[in-house]
């Protein structure tokens, strides 16, 4: 079978010295426990596919797709080996060879058909004229109330959000291996979003607009950090860093600063900031291996409970959804927007 996408990663695969330092925080390995579940294991498999020493198989595809793209491995790797990029290339070759998951194909067809990953024609961006361009993203489109809340927050804090008709940022095409479709989709996306500067609500969209298109992107928490009112909500919370926000976009302090300003005492989990523990919702495993996702999320919930905090707060809709499910009601999981809104209301009441 012809290798198309892994070819360009041979040098990077030789750069990896197979030291195993990537074992340290890999959420998939922590749950499953075999070396095939680690970044080293998956890059070795990619190497085997590239050199022809391994025949592609359903099992290899399963292992290559069992990655949340959380980049903990990259954070631990002193050679900064581009593990997610290698795995994305391996997935692209595997998809070409017929090993893509049906659920992933379905997701891609949904985007082609409706513009969003859910295939929901009703999930449309709440268009409005304004001054600062906000990209909503599929996950928030499916949560219209939360989207509206963010837009109201922006307005209350003196900004005029501009929202356009939108389509998926394209990350699923890249991450799940649909490269040919990705090129077409990117052209379509750029026609809709030729602007250079964009604010995003979703950390994953932010990372992909930055890495996939080279846009100057700001996350909503960066925009809000100097604008949220200083109030005292009197809450103790722990903050979950979404992987794309902390490890890809290096945004760890702004959300914490927001929480501090609105009177939320943050108690840190064992793994935080750049070494945050993945929620288990990324990389496509949510649609192919929900049990694995649940087990990863359960580990994170255990860390959150150990802090003794009342709440677990995150700005990522996927993390919120996955962690909420895993929490089984033992700790409340909230989007940071809820607390910001609460703070705005409190500041209005007090004035």
């Amino acid at each position: 079978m012809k290798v198309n996408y892994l070819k360009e990663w041979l040098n990077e695969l030789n750069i990896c010295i197979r030291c195993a330092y990537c074992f340290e925080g890999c959420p998939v390995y922590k749950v499953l426990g075999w070396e095939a579940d680690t970044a080293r294991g998956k890059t070795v498999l990619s190497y085997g596919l590239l050199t022809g020493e391994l025949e592609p198989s359903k099992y290899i595809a399963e292992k290559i797709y069992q990655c949340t793209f959380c980049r903990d491995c990259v954070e631990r790797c002193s050679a900064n080996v581009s593990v997610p990029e290698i795995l994305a290339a391996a997935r692209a070759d595997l998809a070409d060879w017929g090993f893509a998951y049906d659920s992933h194909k379905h997701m891609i067809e949904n985007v082609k058909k409706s513009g969003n990953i859910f295939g929901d024609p009703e999930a449309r961006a709440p268009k409005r004229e304004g001054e600062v361009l906000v990209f909503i993203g599929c996950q928030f489109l499916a949560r219209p109330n939360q989207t509206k809340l963010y837009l109201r927050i922006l307005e209350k804090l003196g900004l005029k959000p501009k929202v356009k008709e939108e389509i998926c940022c394209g990350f699923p095409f890249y991450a799940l291996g649909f490269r040919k479709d990705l090129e077409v989709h990117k052209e379509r996306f750029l026609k809709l979003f030729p602007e250079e500067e964009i604010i995003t609500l979703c950390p994953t969209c932010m990372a992909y607009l930055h890495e996939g298109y080279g846009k100057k992107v700001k996350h909503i928490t960066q925009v809000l950090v100097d604008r949220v009112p200083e109030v005292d909500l009197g809450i103790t919370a722990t903050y979950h860093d979404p992987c794309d926000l902390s490890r890809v976009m290096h945004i760890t302090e702004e959300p914490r600063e927001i929480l501090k300003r609105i009177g939320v005492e943050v108690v840190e989990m064992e793994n935080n900031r750049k070494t945050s523990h993945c929620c288990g919702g990324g990389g496509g495993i949510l649609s192919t291996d929900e049990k694995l996702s649940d087990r990863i999320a359960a580990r994170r919930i255990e860390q959150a409970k150990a802090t003794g905090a009342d709440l677990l707060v995150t700005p990522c809709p996927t993390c919120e959804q996955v962690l909420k499910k895993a929490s089984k009601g033992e700790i409340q999981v909230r989007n940071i927007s809820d607390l910001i809104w609460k703070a705005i209301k409190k500041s209005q009441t007090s004035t």
Partner: protein
Amino acid sequence: MKIDLDRLKDIVGEDNIRNNAADLYIYGSDASVHVATPWVVVQPKKISEVQDILRYANEELIPVIPRGAGSGMSGHTVPIDGGIILDMKRMNRILEIRPQDILCRVEAGVVDDDLNRALKPFGFFYPPAPASSRIATIGGEIANNASGIRSVKYGATRDSVLGMKVVMANGDLVNLGSNTRVEASGYQIERLIVGSEGTLAVIVEATLKIVPLPKYRCLGIASFNKLEEAGEAISDVISSGASPSMLELMDDVAITAVNKALNLGLPDVEAIVIFEADGMVKEAVDYEINRIKEICERHNGFGIKYSYDAKERARIYAGRKKLFAALSRYKEGLSCTSLADDMAVPNSRMADMAKKIHEVAKRNNVIMTAYGHCGSGVMHTKILMDPTKKEQWEDARRAVAEIYDYVREIGGTTSAEHGIAISKAPFWKKERKDSLEIMRAIKKALDPNNILNPHKLMDAPDDWVTATRLRYPVGGR
């Protein structure tokens, strides 16, 4: 050789066995240049399972290769004859911590850093601290007699092992050593097992000496414009009677690689010496730091900075610990290979060794680096080369031989802390020629059927390049 999977399933359960091509491919390599293919991978959870696996393997003459994280650099866990990979990582319980007896007891698969995290609330630590401590298992560290940045003060793994439980090749479980800090007489078999690289027995449990955490730690860096002067400074610090808790050398290649990969901002000089002192009394730590500083200055060390700040110490410490992989980023197109990676030389020859490494590199068209825990006599290098080119392997072959010829010439040893296994065996065998037959006799006595990690150490092939397949696509495989 056909493996009786049903028998293995009866022992560990179906979920704890892997024998498909993908898993075998992964478990056939480690951090060395070698690869080979095992027949099956098994993850035992209990000592009795390890015993049953070995009974089966011994009956059927199947090689058994115990494996921790598989981070060895010389091919320790590469199954040169195939066989069963015994992945010990599920045996990862910390069984007891006894501060009063200053010891702890752990299963072989416990990760070094996890142990240290557990010891911290008790005010203790486990000191060998290899750079791989974040993933290295205690069993692997013992099998390899690992040491690290703090060995200059606290010794290597062998100095920290009080006792252990091992499973012999015939499946017998044997208790070795004691819970005491002193043990005088008889053959101290537990000390023999340390560094035996999985060839004599499978370590399943260890009793380890622990050390109270010092109240103060101060870390310093000194810059040098000449590599030899840095080496001389290190030798003098040790012979002066100073007691550093870390005394590391990094040459310009290592500095460049770490700065490039980790953006550490280390000084752009020919060499740096990183030093640390620790203790319970600040004045004593200050005294040590000042002594080291004075000696560095005497050897033209400059820009000397030191700090008690935990964050600053952690930054430098991380740079040193991550150096091995970072070397792969030194120059586009070159990879870091674990060749001639480790040696020990007499204290007075540290500077000569560092200089020699660069001479050998130049002569053989490769890049090499001189760094290591030089305070404890350990010098590391790596060969940075294009591993896809056949001629580079010939260059490497010559360079490795020249390095170890020189090590022997100056009274050093091939084995400092990264083990021998396959890559270094040809040179180690020359060095230890007088004792090879004794070692073979011991191996024969403990493992008569030669099932435990066969063809390593004294029984490894004489040419490391052709001993196994190489992990790189040499000549465009």
